[in-house]
């Protein structure tokens, strides 16, 4: 059944040692043992009901940017991905070859952003992303994970941050950025380990590693808004979590626990997370779920909510607006994942004169194509990732904006790749970059 094989051309072969080398020594018996253990011990009602309820109607297909961008190739539809992975694994009781598992990893890890848009198109509300995360779990347990992704997870496991940042480098970077911020605002400080502060500000490790100026921006914003804040000098400062996406849930749990425990140790009122979507998902629900917490122990808010609070309360006043036309990349994990679409528009309206709304919008936004750990699978998979999100390029181009505001690190990198891949000639900005440009700095705070 299904389409005759001759009209489905094979996909380009991508070599990735994390997959190619790992599967060489795997036997069908070893794979079967893992598949059956994961399915028997780690899944229950949801998994079974989802699989037994799906009537193979294909109505989820129109949700998926991979499917739409690959000219409606059925291999990229959400249910098509489940068919090529889980249905086969279950039918063969897990007794599959290493080569088959490699395909499972390619599909679940590099061709699905677990953005959950398909759950809004499936009439039954089947959580297809959860099913594909279960495939990732199986691949991880077999040691079959794209190499770049696994390196990131190794870093989480060893250093509790994503980018092998050592403690002295972390503190040094903060001091450097404090100096930079004081070049603009005389009172800018990055208070380390301040017990009882109102806000614990956490970032993802790529910020100190490659985007340190974003921390400097935040130091300026905090100083102008006169926020009582702190950052820890010790582990737990990194809120990112790629282990959540590789299927290494044990490491995911350790990382999330460290993040929340850092906040508890500093006795802060709340955690404010930098502009990142997946990190927010990890801290607010995927992490707590695994750790057996219904809610995070310390209230967590995303940077977008925090900026909204600063702007609407008047703590930050806007001196001028950005005149260039701007549009928005709505990060799945804070819009579909937290309903922040309206607040995002309000802070953009407050700071930009010419906002061009994207369509589809709000919960129906398209994923950037980078999220869900896909971009972390590294350069080998970049071509297919950019090809798999043509609809995003079309969506952005239709706005005719010059600037794309992306309050998420994955979106930021993913949209940059799409802009260069499809030659859109746009610029990508975090909201903090917009805010430091337009906020009013009281005279007494200005560095001369």
């Amino acid at each position, binding site marked *: *059944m*299904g*389409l005759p094989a001759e009209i489905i051309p094979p996909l380009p072969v991508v070599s990735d040692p994390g997959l190619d080398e790992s599967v060489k020594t795997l036997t069908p018996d070893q794979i079967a043992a893992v598949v059956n253990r994961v399915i028997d011990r780690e*899944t*229950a*009602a*949801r*998994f*079974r*009901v*989802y699989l*037994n*309820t*799906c*009537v*193979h*109607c*294909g*109505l989820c*297909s*129109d*949700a998926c940017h991979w*499917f739409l961008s690959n000219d*409606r*190739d*059925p*291999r990229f*539809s959400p*249910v*098509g991905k489940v*068919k090529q992975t889980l249905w086969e694994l279950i039918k063969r009781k897990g007794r599959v070859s290493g080569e088959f598992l490699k395909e499972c990893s390619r599909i679940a890890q590099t061709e699905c952003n677990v953005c959950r848009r398909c*759950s*809004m*198109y499936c*009439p*039954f*509300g*089947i*959580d297809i992303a959860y099913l594909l995360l279960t495939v990732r779990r199986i691949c991880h347990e077999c040691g079959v994970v794209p190499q770049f992704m696994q390196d990131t997870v190794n870093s989480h496991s060893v250093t509790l941050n994503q980018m092998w940042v050592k403690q002295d480098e972390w503190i040094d970077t903060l001091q450097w950025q404090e100096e930079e911020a004081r070049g603009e605002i005389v009172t800018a400080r990055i208070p380390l380990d301040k017990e009882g502060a109102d806000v614990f500000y956490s970032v993802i490790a790529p910020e100190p590693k490659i985007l340190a100026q974003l921390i400097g921006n935040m130091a300026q914003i905090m100083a102008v808004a006169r926020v009582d804040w702190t950052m820890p000098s010790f582990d737990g400062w990194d809120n990112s979590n790629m282990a959540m996406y590789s299927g290494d849930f044990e490491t995911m749990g350790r990382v999330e626990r460290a993040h929340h425990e850092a906040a508890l140790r500093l006795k802060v009122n709340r955690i404010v997370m930098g502009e990142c979507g997946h990190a927010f998902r990890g801290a607010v*629900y995927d992490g707590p*779920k695994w750790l*057996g917490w*219904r809610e995070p122990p310390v209230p967590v808010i995303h940077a977008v909510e925090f900026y909204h609070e600063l702007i609407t309360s008047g703590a930050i006043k806007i001196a001028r607006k950005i005149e260039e036309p701007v549009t928005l990349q709505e990060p799945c994990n804070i*819009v*579909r*994942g*937290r*309903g*922040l679409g309206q607040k995002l528009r309000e802070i953009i309206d407050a700071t930009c004169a010419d906002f061009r709304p994207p369509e589809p919008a709000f*919960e*129906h936004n398209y994923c950037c194509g980078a999220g869900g750990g896909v971009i972390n699978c590294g350069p080998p998979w970049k071509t297919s990732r950019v090809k798999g999100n043509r609809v995003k390029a079309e969506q952005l181009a239709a706005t005719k904006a010059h600037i794309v505001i992306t309050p998420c690190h994955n979106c930021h990198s993913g949209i940059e790749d799409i802009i260069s891949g499809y030659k859109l000639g746009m610029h990508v900005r975090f909201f903090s970059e917009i805010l430091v440009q337009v906020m009013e700095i009281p005279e007494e705070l200005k560095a001369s």
Partner: protein
Amino acid sequence: MYAFVSGPLVWIAFIVFVGGMIYQLVTMLQNAKKDKVVYPYVSLKHGIRSLFHWVVPFASKNMRMRYEMTIMTFVFHLCLILLPILLTAHVAMFSFAWGVKWLTVSERTADWLTVFTVFALVFFLVRRLMLPEVRFVTSASDYILLAIVAAPFVTGFMAHRQWFDYETMIVLHMISGAVMLMAIPFTRLSHMLFFPFTRIYMGSEFGAVRNAKDW
């Protein structure tokens, strides 16, 4: 033969159907305890809000994008459930056996609704064959399920119209009806039972945890 299919087989079919549904329901509710997130996150308010948007025609975006499928599925499912209950011949049998009666539709209406139901099934079949994304995930079981659902309607219509041999047709009709009833709890037709639960759970996660809509 007629005595068996119109007596014991009907009882067997109803017992298997009801028993199977209860078994599936209890198993699901027990399994949901092992799935540690289900009970803590279920929110009736958000779940029912989501369910509402998926049982009202065109209340969700996907239904508006696929209007032909929406019309077909809604009318099909309504006919599938209501037609057997409101059919004069079915009610007459209950009335004859137990003396109970309820509302019926006219025979002419029933004929047209049956024709529509079968037409909808043909539509589903053609869609399955024509749309690559549906065909890709289709296996023999999907065709068998369509046939299981179509059979009682086709044979019932033929029996009523007295096409071919009535005695044979009515026996086939009762057998196929029994097969469909018994298949519901143990095949993907069980979405009849599971649909509200999967939707309510997803609506809860979207609404209560993520402050977002899922329609």
